[in-house]
């Protein structure tokens, strides 16, 4: 039994800081080549084509060779989504894990053509206490003037393993917004990369996470800005209880030539127990003078004053904590326009904080 090193940061820092990568027991990866058939697709638009994906995977970063090769060689679900409509569309893909569908290795390739507006919701959900394995690659090509909203929901059980690689190519005047709800997984590891190459392009990434028991959450978000007047905004709000551990690695890299670009990242971790651990590495890399970059990071327990106020209104401490966590998450939850999905996420928040 040996450990594999995955999810490397684009720039290393001292090994003793324990943040450059994460080590995962390699036994986790060696799943049998199994089928996954419980996929529900809701696509009301004839202008969104979903077909079998045969596009070769080509990633700049990714979680690591082993996991990416697994998707290349053993994907049991392949989708190519092409958005080809100037009217707004919403497409949902629900991957439902059950006793007959416990291992999903999927490859999703999305192309949003010029001037299109689309929302794509991807949900990974498991029945209670089911041990599942998920390793997926989502690649987005957002063409000129397109507007893409992607919502990713990880609602797997806490004894699952969840690995996601996201790779975006963002052209001129594109607006790409991701909302990621990251709740499930004994290990939940995400590698997110955006190549913001177009002038006036904008990429917003909003994440909420909850870690409990012995969950390990490893988020490695990388945005490279090449386009003039391009923008990146990374907002991460999370809560940790029990002995959960979170690593947040956020990199905004201003490349030479991205004049007047702006990049901001904000990470806030609410610690709900004295045994939870939060590590953050919010990096700003800058090779262009005429930019504005900022990051902030904070951690601590929920405020005593706020708790006291809510409890004075008759709530017990658990309910008061839930309310405060929800309050912090609300700004991000508001990005989910699908009411049914939003309601589901709110219920999950309550369940996971109980």
């Amino acid at each position, binding site marked *: 039994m040996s450990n594999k090193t995955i999810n490397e940061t684009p720039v290393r820092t001292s090994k003793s800081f324990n943040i450059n990568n994460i080590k995962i027991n390699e036994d986790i990866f060696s799943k049998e080549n199994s089928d996954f058939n419980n996929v529900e697709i809701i696509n009301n638009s004839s202008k969104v084509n979903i077909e079998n994906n045969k596009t070769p995977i080509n990633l700049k970063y990714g979680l690591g060779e082993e996991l990416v090769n697994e998707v290349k060689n053993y994907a049991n679900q392949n989708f190519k989504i092409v958005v080809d409509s100037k009217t707004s569309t919403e497409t949902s893909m629900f991957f439902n894990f059950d006793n007959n569908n416990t291992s999903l290795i999927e490859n999703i390739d999305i192309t949003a053509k010029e001037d299109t507006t689309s929302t794509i919701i991807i949900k990974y959900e498991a029945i209670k206490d089911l041990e599942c394995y998920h390793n997926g690659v989502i690649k987005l090509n957002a063409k000129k003037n397109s507007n893409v909203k992607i919502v990713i929901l990880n609602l797997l059980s806490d004894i699952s393993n969840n690995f996601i690689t996201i790779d975006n190519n963002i052209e001129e005047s594109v607006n790409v917004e991701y909302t990621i709800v990251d709740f499930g997984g004994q290990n939940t590891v995400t590698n997110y990369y955006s190549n913001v190459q177009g002038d006036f392009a904008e990429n917003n990434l909003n994440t909420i996470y909850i870690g409990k028991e012995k969950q390990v959450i490893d988020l490695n978000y990388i945005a490279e800005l090449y386009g003039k007047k391009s923008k990146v905004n990374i907002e991460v709000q999370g809560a940790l209880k029990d002995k959960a551990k979170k690593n947040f690695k956020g990199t905004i890299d201003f490349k030479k030539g991205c004049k007047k670009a702006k990049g901001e990242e904000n990470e806030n971790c609410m610690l709900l127990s*004295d045994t939870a651990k939060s590590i953050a590495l919010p990096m700003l890399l800058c090779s262009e003078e005429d930019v504005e970059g900022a990051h902030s990071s904070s951690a601590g327990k929920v405020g005593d004053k706020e708790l006291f106020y809510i409890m004075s209104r008759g709530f017990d401490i658990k309910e008061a904590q839930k309310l405060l966590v929800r309050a912090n998450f609300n700004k991000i939850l508001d990005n989910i326009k699908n009411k049914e999905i939003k309601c589901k996420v709110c219920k999950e928040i309550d369940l996971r904080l109980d």
Partner: protein
Amino acid sequence: MVKTQIQEIDTNIYDIKNADNYDFKMQKGITKEIVEEISKQKNDPEWMREFRLKALEVYNELEMPTWGPDLSELDMDEIATYVRPKTKLNTSWDEVPDDIKKTFDRLGIPEAERKSLAGVGAQYDSEVVYHSMKEDLIKQGVIYTDMETAIRDYPDLVKQYFMKCVPVNDHKFVALHGAVWSGGSFVYVPKNVKLDFPLQSYFRLNSPESGQFEHTLIIVEEGASLHFIEGCSAPKYNKVNLHAGCVELIVKDNAYLRYSTIENWSKNMMNLNTKKAMIGKNAQVDWVTGSFGSKISMLYPLSQLNGEGAKTEYTGISFAGEGQNLDTGFKAIHNAPNTSSVVNAKSISKNGGKCTYRSLIKISPKAKGSKSSVSCESLMLDDISISDTIPVNDIQTDEVEFSHEAKIGKISDKTIFYLMSRGISEEDAKAMIVRGFAYPISKELPVEYAVEMNNLINLELEGTIG
């Protein structure tokens, strides 16, 4: 818009080379025989000889850092690790050989000693050539001497603390330091003694293709207080020089230490220095650091807050010009309840220079009720320079208040416009902004050093912006 041009720091007074006159210069390289010869030359006690050889073993075992600036230009086979100048340790400047004295005169050390210091140590290449302290401090039991004298005269004290704070296996260049260290200062401030004036050690490396490995060990006993200043410089040569010093600060309960540094090494210098403070209950260590020189710097002072209520503050600025890669920052490890750390770091990069702020704030499970606030700002003065911020925040308990913020960017057009609308010319406005950016750091320095730092930045602004 006309570009802002801010010249490199004028290093004229630092660049004056003396002839490479030495009493003894070790052959280049790092081998067991060389380490044994250094030990012999320095007349080490047996325990130190054994310590050096053990450190060499660790050095050979450890890998080069896998992160940070590229150190491939450093070839230890081309570095002489020990150079003894042609003089003994003196207690009067009149006894110091003329060429060496002139060097320190130009650097303003004797003058500062007369005006505002309680004691001075001056190291030239591998050995301390001058050490002196005011009489009244000697009477109060303060010890301020070179490390070699300390080993001879206070062996138990040195043995108790030497490289305990910074163990040799910390990293490769600490191990190298342990094997070949020479020179440096030893300070002992007895219980409840408070020094009104600072002590200052100045380190000058003159010999080409050599290294300086001075060791500074400061012990501030309970309730005592000290301000210690160190300055460093070297003339520029074509080949790489190496500085791998080590600073160990033991600050006991209720004590206070301010450690101020202006590093202005020449631009062929690899500055791979290590500094660490162990801080007791309700004690405080403040670091004030200006990093201007060197080709490559890797320097991250560490405050280990071991006693309840211990505090630390780091105030630092880096200025990287052409060909410089200054990778600096700070580490704070909160190991006790109600400890606090405040970080205020700034950097300016220009003309292709690279500044990196790299840090670690670690709040351990024992450090309930602790607070940490980190702020870093980077100013880029042209589009060929690089500025990176790489902070790690490791929080292991819930009862904390932790915040970190960083900003990166160029001189604000709006601010320039505002100042110009008040009748200030564009070039004066830009110069004023750069001075203002550095001001929070320079105001924390002793006056002479603030003046030196302002000179390093301001003098060159005049006539070069436009």
